[in-house]
């Protein structure tokens, strides 16, 4: 009887709820940003890529930076769900759904933003029909599609027991939401055979998604590293990108943890212990990424080969120096400084550190993509003056911000539809603890 009451209490606590006033304002702001982005994209479709500031030299600008950012953040699904699950870490249970939702939304917008970067998006199908298997771009298309499917499945399988609860709670309700729940999970009865099949599928998926996740970001790094350019010509790029991806993904989860905890009053489920544990993970990942950064910049800077020197000096003390040091400080050094101390791993400082990591990571992607393109091997001669610099046009900013808002909107809607913390898993864990 007591157990049943506990279960009901947990269910009630974790059920998705309607947006409150702030939720509506938040959703409206995101919709507005998406609408502005959509209008800017309409202008780009109408007039072509000429509306951007990209040109003969900087042919990959803010869109590709955004793409790399989304790909990076999508890796969090594999980190929190797959890695920690396989390592038999139980404290991460309340965070798995958040990580899976972030992964799905990020990979959706990674796919979309790459199409935005295409001058002739109507020819996207040609990429699949006539693509060359020798090209890392085709590898990226394949691996992103695969990761998208696996991320959806990784979200779906653990959701099945919760769907049963949602259908039960909403019994007699004929809303569209309930129809969706029934469509997705009415077949789930929770019998031992179903549980066995589901557990097996999740385990196989967790094993599969880790190499696929590594592939998605390694292949993305190869888009750059297979090109002989200063700043990209590195054998270290795959590991460098993966470490950065895990960092930004973990940072995003920390931010989402804090926001959902506040918004849905989940203090009982996302506790200070979770922040402390995630803080330790985050500081370890930040140190790891810092190590790779030192490798990436110090070694070429020590040699200062002529083609590299202009690029490096521009980063260290030139046009990109403020942005570069901002990304290093905000994205790594200051969060490390905060998170190394126990007091820094409390919810609010963690939120600030997580936010810094995410913002720093976005600018870091921009610094990986753009400065290299402004430093070709052959001198830039007899070209218009604007070719020597790149600053995104308002359309580029609007589309990039619109895509970020879109990803947040997907997260917002998914958190409105599905429980942000797995209900059934939480109940099971509570029972196990009680036993």
């Amino acid at each position, binding site marked *: 009887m007591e157990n049943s009451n506990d279960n009901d209490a947990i269910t009630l606590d974790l059920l998705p709820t309607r947006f409150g006033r702030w939720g509506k304002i938040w959703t409206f702001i995101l919709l507005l940003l998406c609408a502005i982005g959509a209008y800017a994209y309409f202008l780009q479709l109408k007039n072509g890529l000429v509306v951007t500031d990209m040109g003969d030299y900087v042919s990959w600008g803010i869109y590709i930076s955004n793409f790399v950012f989304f790909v990076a953040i999508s890796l969090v699904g594999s980190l929190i769900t797959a890695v920690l699950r396989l390592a038999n870490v139980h404290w991460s249970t309340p965070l798995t759904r958040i990580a899976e939702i972030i992964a799905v939304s990020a990979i959706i917008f990674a796919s979309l933003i790459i199409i935005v970067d295409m001058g002739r998006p109507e020819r996207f199908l040609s990429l699949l029909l006539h*693509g*060359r*298997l020798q090209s890392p771009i085709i590898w990226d298309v394949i691996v992103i599609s695969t990761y998208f499917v696996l991320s959806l499945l990784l979200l779906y399988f653990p959701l099945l027991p919760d769907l049963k609860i949602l259908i039960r709670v909403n019994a007699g309700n004929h809303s569209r939401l309930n129809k969706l729940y029934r469509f997705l999970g009415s077949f789930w*009865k929770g019998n031992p055979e*179903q549980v066995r099949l589901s557990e097996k*599928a999740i385990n*196989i*998926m967790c094993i599969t998604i880790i190499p696929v996740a590594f592939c998605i970001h390694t292949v993305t790094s190869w888009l750059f590293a297979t090109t002989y350019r200063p700043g990209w010509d590195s054998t270290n790029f795959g590991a460098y990108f993966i470490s950065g991806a895990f960092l930004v993904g973990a940072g995003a989860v920390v931010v989402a943890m804090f926001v959902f905890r506040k918004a849905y009053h989940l203090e009982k489920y996302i506790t200070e212990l979770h922040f402390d544990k995630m803080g330790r993970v985050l500081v370890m990942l930040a140190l790891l990424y810092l190590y790779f950064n030192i490798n990436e910049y110090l070694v070429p800077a020590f040699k200062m080969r002529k083609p590299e020197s202009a690029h490096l000096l521009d980063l260290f003390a030139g046009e990109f120096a403020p942005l570069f040091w901002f990304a290093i400080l905000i994205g790594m050094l200051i969060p490390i400084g905060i998170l190394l101390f126990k007091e820094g791993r409390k919810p609010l400082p963690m939120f600030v550190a997580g936010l810094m990591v995410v913002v720093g990571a976005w600018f870091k992607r921009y610094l990986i993509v753009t400065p290299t393109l402004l430093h070709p091997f052959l001198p830039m001669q007899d070209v218009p003056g604007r070719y020597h610099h790149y600053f995104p046009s308002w359309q580029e900013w609007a589309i990039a911000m619109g895509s970020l808002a879109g990803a947040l909107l997907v997260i917002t809607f998914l958190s409105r539809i599905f429980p942000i913390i797995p209900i059934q898993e939480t109940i099971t864990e509570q029972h196990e603890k009680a036993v």
Partner: protein
Amino acid sequence: MKRLCNVYPLLFSLCLQLFIGFPADGQDSAGKSLLVDLSYHSLNNSVVYLSVHAKTKENGKFQPVGGARFRLYLDKDSAACFAGNAVTDTKGSAMSFLPPSLKNQWNSAATHTFIAVSDAAGAFNPSRTEASVVKAHLEIDTGQGKTIIAKIVELKNGEWAPVKAIEIKVAIKRSGGDLAVGDKESYTTDSTGTISAEFHRDGIPGDKSGQLTLVAKVEDNDTYGNLRVEKSEPWGTDLILTDTFDQRSLWAARFKTPLWLLLMEYSIFLSVWSVVVYLVIQIRKIIKAGR
């Protein structure tokens, strides 16, 4: 008084010149001078052509003049002796072959003068340049032990007579220019008009059957112009072309992907997607188990 009388005409003439100006020099200095180099070329003693190079001096430096138009004549600048038009390219160079219509005139004498005339155009003044040549033949042959023999003869009193003390270069024709056959830059003809050069480029690649094109040439000679003769000899090594075009490679077309890459990609793709298919089958099983 007598001295003063002598000065007045001088002063008068000076004032007159100031008033009416300096017609000849004044007009010339208004435009830029075109510096023209006109050269005669003979290839294998059969093809005769002229080359024109136009340049001007700007800020103390020579600059090529592109688009300069020249009318070329043989011996006289009359319509009957017209040899053709030539317009310089961006490097200031142009060439024109001697037309068959001037064959009789060409054969009628041992010495000829070529004339290049340009009208005033743009900032440039009109120009007229002449170049005289004595008809000469250059011959090339090979001797024993890979020796190249070249001989120069000139047309003198209706006879071909050897010419001594002429610098002849002996080389191998390559795609980027001519490569000297030995260490010496050039050879000087003896009293029989002959030189002999040793071939020191063993092992150099020729064409598919090892054929090399040997070249003997006289360059920028004041009397004979530019003469060049060529002869083919199988002194090179056979060229074996390894054409990688249209073969399986990382840079080939999509249907020419290397097999090892295809194998790797398909293995990875199939293994991962077989898991995805397996997971979808699991969903079906879960649905069945719920019925």
